[in-house]
């Protein structure tokens, strides 16, 4: 059993999808491919392959891979029903759909590769691939806004990428004297093994570049500017993938490099930097939520907010902090993609993304409306959903150690909660507004995600916990 299939499947699927004209067939194929790669990921759980110079499976990234492939699968299911509607309304043409599906698989390929890579160079290439594919996906509607969003995303993204590459090179430079001028100097496993001998000064500079470079893709303020528009203007499945997966991938990269730094005694502690950026993003996004008129853009900002919390948690580190970070990350990508699924259908019903044109959803579309309410409550960190657990851990564990920071976090949480609650009350309750036609929604993905989050909120399975704890220990 090796990790290769995950990559290959996507590759092959992409090639096929580029060829197939019939969009139903291609949609189903898309779903199938995603499902198979998810199964492969589960296979990895069963028997873990040996690592080589290029591919790596360890406790840390297997979490991400599973999550990635799972959400990829559910998203493909959702996208099947979504694009059908897009075709009816004529926003997309079959020609574009071929492109769309192919790109979808390439995107998954890029992300999975980035997660699997045992090689900082390979990882960088993969992240770039993911970026490029998502860029064209964002621009696919070819409206003014879409193009501008894509352009913004592209420019900021490529600058970020460039900075990340510079950082990567610096890491290599730091590693070379110790590991020797060979491929090993770019391989995670050997890097980690020798990290303590690296030149701290170089590592520091490298981390600054990597933090900003990959942080741009994580969507941390002040590098966040691309994220809201990309979420708002792209097709909703892409928004779901962006929030649910791409941010995680970038975050994963950051964590990897954080490992290097924390393994090196001389280097600066990465904690404070991450805490600072995290708090900034959290509070900034919290305030930005209030003036949003576009529902997808609003939830994009909520993603920034949550990335802030997660980065903060990892910055606080410690067994509790890291555990909370991992949990929060998992829960966020499940919940947020669920939100985007329901929002996508809502937007299709209402024919717009303007919040002002939505209202009384629980009256007109009870299932959809309550699903949306539930997922928003979940993302706001209320029980019985999983985010509550993680935020509980973040706040309580950090208050004992750094009261002021915890108070700031609480402040940010309250601010953003106020905005989300205000909006969702308007959308889901009160007098119905906007078109109230029936909707051909695929509830399966939504409820799959929600039930997972619900279960996690009440009871975390033992293996998962020990595994998270192990990773948390890894992250120091």
């Amino acid at each position, binding site marked *: 059993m090796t990790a290769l299939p995950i990559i290959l499947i996507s590759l092959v699927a992409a090639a096929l999808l580029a060829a197939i004209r019939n969009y139903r067939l291609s949609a189903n194929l898309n779903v199938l491919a995603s499902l198979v790669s998810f199964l492969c990921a589960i296979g990895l759980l069963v028997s873990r392959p040996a690592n080589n110079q290029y591919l790596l499976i360890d406790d840390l990234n297997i979490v991400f891979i599973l999550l990635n492939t799972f959400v990829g699968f559910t998203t493909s299911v959702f996208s099947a029903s979504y694009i059908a509607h897009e075709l009816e309304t004529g926003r997309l043409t079959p020609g574009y759909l071929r492109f769309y599906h192919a790109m979808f698989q390439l995107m998954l390929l890029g992300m999975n590769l980035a997660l699997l890579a045992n*090689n900082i*160079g*390979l990882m*960088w*290439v993969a992240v*770039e691939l993911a970026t*490029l594919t998502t860029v*064209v996906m964002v*621009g696919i509607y*070819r409206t*003014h*806004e879409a*193009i*501008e*969003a*894509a*352009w913004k995303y*592209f*420019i900021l993204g*490529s*600058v970020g*990428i*460039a*900075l990340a*590459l*510079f950082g990567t*090179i*610096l890491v*290599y*430079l*730091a590693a*070379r*004297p110790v590991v020797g*001028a*060979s*491929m090993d*100097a*770019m391989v995670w496993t050997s890097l980690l093994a020798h990290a303590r001998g690296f*030149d701290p*000064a*170089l590592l520091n*500079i490298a981390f600054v570049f990597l933090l900003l470079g990959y942080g741009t893709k994580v969507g941390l303020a002040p590098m966040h500017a691309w994220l*809201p*528009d990309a979420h*708002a*203007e792209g097709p909703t499945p892409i928004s779901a993938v962006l929030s649910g997966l791409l941010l995680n991938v970038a975050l994963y990269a950051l964590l990897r490099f954080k490992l290097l730094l924390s393994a090196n005694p001389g280097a600066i502690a990465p904690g404070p930097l991450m805490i600072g950026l995290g708090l900034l993003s959290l509070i900034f996004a919290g305030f930005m939520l209030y003036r*949003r*008129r*576009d529902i997808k*853009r609003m939830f994009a900002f909520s993603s920034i907010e949550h990335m802030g919390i997660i980065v903060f948690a990892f910055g606080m580190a410690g067994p509790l902090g890291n555990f909370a970070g991992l949990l929060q990350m998992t829960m966020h990508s499940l919940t947020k993609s669920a939100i985007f699924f329901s929002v996508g259908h809502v937007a299709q019903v209402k024919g717009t993304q303007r919040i002002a044109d939505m209202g009384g959803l629980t009256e007109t579309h009870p299932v959809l409306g309550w699903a949306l309410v539930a997922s928003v409550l979940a993302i706001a960190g209320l029980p019985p959903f999983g985010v509550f657990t993680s935020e509980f851990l973040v706040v309580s564990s950090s208050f004992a150690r750094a009261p002021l920071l915890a108070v700031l976090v609480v402040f940010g949480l309250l601010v953003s909660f106020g905005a989300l609650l205000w909006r969702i009350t308007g959308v889901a309750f009160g007098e119905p507004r906007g078109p109230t036609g029936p909707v051909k929604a695929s509830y399966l993905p939504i409820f799959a995600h929600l039930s997972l989050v619900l279960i996690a909120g009440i009871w975390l399975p033992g293996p998962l916990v020990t595994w998270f704890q192990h990773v948390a220990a890894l992250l120091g």
Partner: protein
Amino acid sequence: MPHLDFDIAHMLAGMLVLASFMMLYQDRLYALLRVLALHAFVLACAVAWQARIQDAPGLYVTAVIALGFKAILAPWALHRIVVRLGIHREIETVVGIGVTMLAGMFLVALSLKVMLPVTAHAEPVAREDIALALSVVLIGLLVMVTRRNAVSQVVGFLSLENGVDLAAAGAQGMPLVVELSVAFSVLIAFIVTGIFLFRIRERFDTVDLQALDRFRGERG
């Protein structure tokens, strides 16, 4: 390593920084493109020289890419775009040239200061090269920030990327350099062949980013 090799490598890197400064100085589009070509040419030389002194054949490929793609193809393509889109030739800069130059100076100083504490056992070539590469990157970013129109920003980005390449080449025996530079070239190809510019061409009469920004979500 022989002293001469080091000097030449150092000199080439320095020239790259110089080219970046020229870029900062230019306020006319065509001239800017020429400087870009020069910039990429210097880079090619630097990389080739590194290939020679590190006798890493892979680097020659990078050098060739730099020469062919960045020094010739990209400037030419951008030139075509400028002509076809009839972009007005002056680049309106945000702040005066003088201030920009000063900022550039400051950036160079900063990068040197940052790189200084790197301990000696990363041998001098690497250290100096990285320091200069860092300043090239920063100046490239500065160009992007201080120029208003898209083409000049793309130019800025290219120079930034040249800096990264310089660093990669300077990092002795770095594997995957070729792959990375190829991947990067793809990125640039994306920009320069400019699906976006063409799409934008369909939509806008100008590639001035402010025109782009007029269609910002949530306005109105």
